């Protein structure tokens, strides 16, 4: 197990998550994909931090996790709101913010 393999793994999961974000039609599925991406990034930071033996990476990831929690809360509220108002959770149909 080396840093390189950790990073490869992180990048792979990040790419899978990116695919899900771009391709899936359901809003919550997109949010889940975003979580995957976040998670991958956190993994990469921790891996690098471990390889250099410094702690700031870990602290950064702690912060990131907290922010992620906040973000997901707000995001899910938006999805609920959209479901209630526009009666749809398909991202393609939520397209009024344009022009």
């Amino acid at each position, binding site marked *: 197990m080396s840093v390189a393999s950790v990073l*490869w793994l992180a990048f792979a999961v990040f790419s899978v998550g990116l695919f899900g974000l771009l*391709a899936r039609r359901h809003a919550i599925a997109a949010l889940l994909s975003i979580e995957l991406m976040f998670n991958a990034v956190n993994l990469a930071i921790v891996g690098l931090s471990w390889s250099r033996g410094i702690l700031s990476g870990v602290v950064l990831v702690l912060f990131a996790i907290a922010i*992620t929690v906040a973000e997901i809360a707000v995001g899910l509220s938006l999805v609920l709101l959209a479901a209630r108002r526009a009666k749809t959770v398909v991202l393609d149909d939520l397209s009024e913010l344009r022009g």
Partner: protein
Amino acid sequence: MRDAAFWVLAALMLGGAAVVVTARSLVRAAFGLAAALIATAGIYLLLTAPLLAAVQILLYTGGVLTLVVFAIVVVGGEVSGAMYRKPLAAAALSAGTFIALSSAVRGLPSRPPVAGLDAGAAIGVSLFVRDYAVPFELLSVLLLAAVIGALLLARKDGPA
């Protein structure tokens, strides 16, 4: 021994990610995410950061995922019609991203590094007292804002 554990956890993580993007039922996708998150926690352990692993399981898997499942229950977890939009373009772009990122994997130390990320006390001191005290306070403001925002948005008669 360590390597084997890592590879197992890696497989689990990737498998979970695959489930997230390919499951038609969102509940299944949520559980796929759970698997990926737990696998990550396992890898954090292997990377000698047990605090982080604990936080990962508590907050991420326990908190975020629960929220997500509740949302799925309220909103509905299936989408009628096609599951993907423009899958080919998305796949192309994802592949491109992976290739672009892969160029970062160089100049890395090849020997296994020293252990030592498990100094919980050191983390605590750095976090609360010395380096990141102010950002820590600001983080709590952020969490407050998020909570208020979420409450506001999700009210029965909307944010208006």
